[in-house]
């Protein structure tokens, strides 16, 4: 028998360090929820490794590599600028249309890339889900992280555009951070629900791109919020993306403070959605391996 490389024997751990795990039929309880979160924290290295891996694989073997994260939205802006400032005139709050559109396209792309890719995130990893246990929410989360990475790369262009068009910076630009946190929470909530639902109903994966297209035109991405007729404004504002995009434009392009009330409303909605969707996800998770 080859005895070339033997391992040191596992040091027998003291009993207190052992982790007792009790498994029962899925049932909602606050303690369970807390337990799930603790498990997620314990597996944080998996979240990190898988996300890095996701980003690496995407740009591996491509010559332009990460610059694709910039090229994609930039190409879109060029097309839109040609259409909306030379062919048709689109009001853009007195700003260059390219800048006006790009600032909205970035968060929109973040949302749409996250959701389209994470929806399939569980189903495409069926081989792992049926073989190994780990907190399944990590899979959709990694797609959100990868999309956030793209967002960060692409936002360097915003800085360049701001300097080029001589838009003044103000301290209000710091509001970008809380707005992005709210957007991310909202995206995670949606990603959890969609990916879990996709395991049961594959229709979700087909419906998401269609819904995103409709949603984009129902959000002030290509046009300003002021272009929406006054009598529709109330209904229009129910779309959480409307408030988020509008706030981003205000703090980045106009140097103004966002509507704090509106922002706190969307923050509470995002957090509430996240709690509900996490519970739903965990419910589906317990028997996911049987149906995926």
């Amino acid at each position: 028998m080859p005895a070339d490389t033997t391992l040191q024997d596992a040091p027998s751990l003291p009993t207190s360090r052992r982790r007792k795990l009790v498994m029962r039929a899925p049932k909602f309880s606050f303690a369970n929820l807390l337990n799930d979160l603790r498990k997620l924290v314990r597996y944080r290295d998996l979240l990190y490794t898988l996300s890095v891996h996701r980003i690496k694989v995407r740009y591996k073997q491509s010559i332009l590599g990460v610059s694709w994260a910039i090229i994609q939205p930039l190409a879109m802006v060029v097309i839109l600028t040609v259409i909306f400032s030379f062919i048709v005139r689109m009001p853009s709050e007195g700003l260059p249309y390219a800048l006006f559109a790009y600032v909205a396209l970035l968060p929109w792309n973040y949302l749409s890339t996250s959701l389209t890719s994470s929806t399939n995130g569980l189903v495409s990893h069926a081989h792992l889900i049926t073989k190994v246990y780990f907190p399944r929410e990590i899979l959709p989360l990694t797609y959100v992280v990868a999309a956030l990475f793209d967002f960060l790369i692409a936002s360097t262009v915003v800085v360049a555009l701001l300097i080029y068009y001589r838009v003044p910076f103000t301290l209000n630009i710091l509001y970008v951070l809380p707005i992005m946190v709210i957007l991310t929470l909202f995206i995670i909530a949606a990603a959890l629900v969609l990916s879990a639902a996709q395991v049961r109903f594959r229709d979700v994966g087909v419906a998401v791109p269609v819904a995103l297209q409709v949603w984009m035109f129902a959000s002030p991405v290509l046009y300003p919020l002021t272009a929406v007729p006054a009598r529709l404004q109330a209904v229009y504002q129910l779309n959480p993306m409307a408030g988020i995009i509008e706030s981003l434009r205000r703090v980045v392009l106009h140097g103004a403070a966002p509507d704090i009330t509106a922002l706190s409303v969307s923050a509470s909605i995002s957090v509430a959605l996240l709690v509900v969707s996490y519970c739903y996800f965990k419910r589906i998770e317990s028997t996911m391996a049987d149906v995926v």
Partner: protein
Amino acid sequence: MLDIEFNQVSKKYLIRKPSAQDGGSRWRNLLRRRADFWAVRNVSFAVERGEALGIIGHNGAGKSTILKLLSSITAPTSGEIVVDGRLAALIEIGSGFHPELTGRENVYLNGVLLGMRRREITAKLKSIVEFAGVEQFIDTPVKHYSSGMYLRLGFSIAAHLDPEILLLDEVLAVGDAAFQAKCLDRVTELRRAGTTIVFISHNLHAVSRLCERTLLLNRGEVLMDGPTNEAIAEYERILFHLTPSAPHGDPIIAKPQDAEIVSLTFQDSSNRQTNSFRTGDSLRAVVQYEVTKAIEDAVIEVYFYSIFGNLHCHFSTGTEGPPLTLSPGTGVVEFFCPEVALEAATFNVDVGIKRRGSRASEFVDCKRAAVLNVTIGKTVAGAFHMPHSWSLGQTNSALVGEPLDADLKLARLN
């Protein structure tokens, strides 16, 4: 102290009933009644710290469901499972590998998937790579690895988890002999260090080597929980009862009008019909056939497959003797083997009739004609028993020992 506890655990799967004709209304299909299937029903058992428990049973007895429940891949429908300690499952080694990533990147990816921390992996990286023997290729994408390297790396990662509880599936059945020996060494090492082990296998021999206690499952219920040799004996008894000696498989008959296998039976040294033999026993295989049209230069063959589908050996009328012509009517051909060389395991036996030189069994090919059960007789270390004798010689004589009278009948068997 208990490491694993199953308290009245049941697991129900929903199976969609196949509708009479597919199509119909999509909505009706959605509402179609589903049938319950209890993969595991009211199972209770406990495993002591440091104990090695074997779990055996037929396919569909609930073995893999128990494994999935233990590793929390799926939740029980009712009951409670308590696992006390860090658990690692050696199931389907390397299933988390990504072909585009290098060996090193995959070690990290697989390690964190199994629940390790990154710095833990960094600390063990050297040892993992050395154990797998892939030092030179660690920065090569694993898509360029041979399947052996792939397996070794996968096993090495899992083996470095330093688990307190180890779940073993049929993993030990893959890879080459050296690798298997290494795996078993490592498992034995862990066992000696006090690791609790649950071993789920079809390989009764391996179970009896590793576990002192075994759980016998049948249709999702515990049929027996006791010393391994008793559980294995009981399993064999059931297996023997369930297996008729007449062909019950699906004969794939190229020309059904030409030939048919009527039965395949085994007889022991006292001409008693049985399906259970011990390594070293003599065995007589009796094939009864019926031929409707004369077949010239025919070859009748009996194949012994492991339950994983590997051909272990075969009997053939074609290896020696005069050409065989089968004339119409029924006939019997007997194969005699003075010493069964197979290791203790269960084998599926196929029978075929073909013309000499043709590769496939063109006249009749009877899959799973019988099951042969080999239990521990003469000690087998390795894959099979090689008949041999020995004698003492003088160390100072010119000849060191007499040339051994090794019986090479094995060559014929294989």
